[in-house]
């Protein structure tokens, strides 16, 4: 796939230090990744991630502090659970779970963070182009068995 995927990252202000990594809201090394600084990873409403995907983003991720070290005690744990739910929900609408990610990096983990984001972008880049999430298209990935359509999350 030639086109560079558009990725939006919601990044907790307390976690990885973005000052040396970003420029005008975009990662310096990966200008296709737009970063939105949020007060805590738990601030991100899963609806917003869904909305971003609907509007044409190829991938979204949330970054919090290392698990156990959330400044607000449990924001990243809660966000991890919410992302799991969102992945299950969107999977039934044929959205690949690889498009939604939860990362956890501390203040000094800039290099590891960049590497992880690169891997995330690479995973998305090889996927077939995103269907608009609301229209039912061909499944991007085979549905795992045992996920009945009507299951509530």
């Amino acid at each position, binding site marked *: 796939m030639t086109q560079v995927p558009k990725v939006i990252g919601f990044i907790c202000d307390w976690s990885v230090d973005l000052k040396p990594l970003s420029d005008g809201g975009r990662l310096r090394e990966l200008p296709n990744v737009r970063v939105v600084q949020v007060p805590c990873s738990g601030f991100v409403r899963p609806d917003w991630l869904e909305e971003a995907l609907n509007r044409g983003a190829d991938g979204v991720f949330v970054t919090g502090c290392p*698990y156990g070290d959330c400044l607000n005690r449990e924001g990243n744990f809660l966000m*991890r659970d919410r992302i*799991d739910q969102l992945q299950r929900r969107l999977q039934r609408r044929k959205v690949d779970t690889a498009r939604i*990610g*939860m*990362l*956890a990096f501390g203040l000094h983990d800039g290099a590891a963070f960049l590497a992880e984001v690169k891997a995330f972008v690479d995973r998305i880049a090889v996927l077939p182009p995103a269907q608009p999430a609301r229209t039912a298209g061909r499944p991007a990935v085979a549905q795992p068995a045992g996920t009945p359509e009507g299951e509530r999350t």
Partner: protein
Amino acid sequence: MRTVYTMGVALLSGLSLLFAVGIIYGEATDQWFLGGGSVGALLIAYSFIVLLLRKMGMTGPRKTER
């Protein structure tokens, strides 16, 4: 890496066997400090076994970290 961890677990298991013998020996000969100290050493050996198992991914949180 996995073989290193496995060897570590084996080594620590051997050590804990030793400490268990220490507990029984201390109890049998009424050397209570030896017995109690062995209890401590045994628990510490266990803690490192658990750590190694966690690093091998055999125990740990419900969801592995991503």
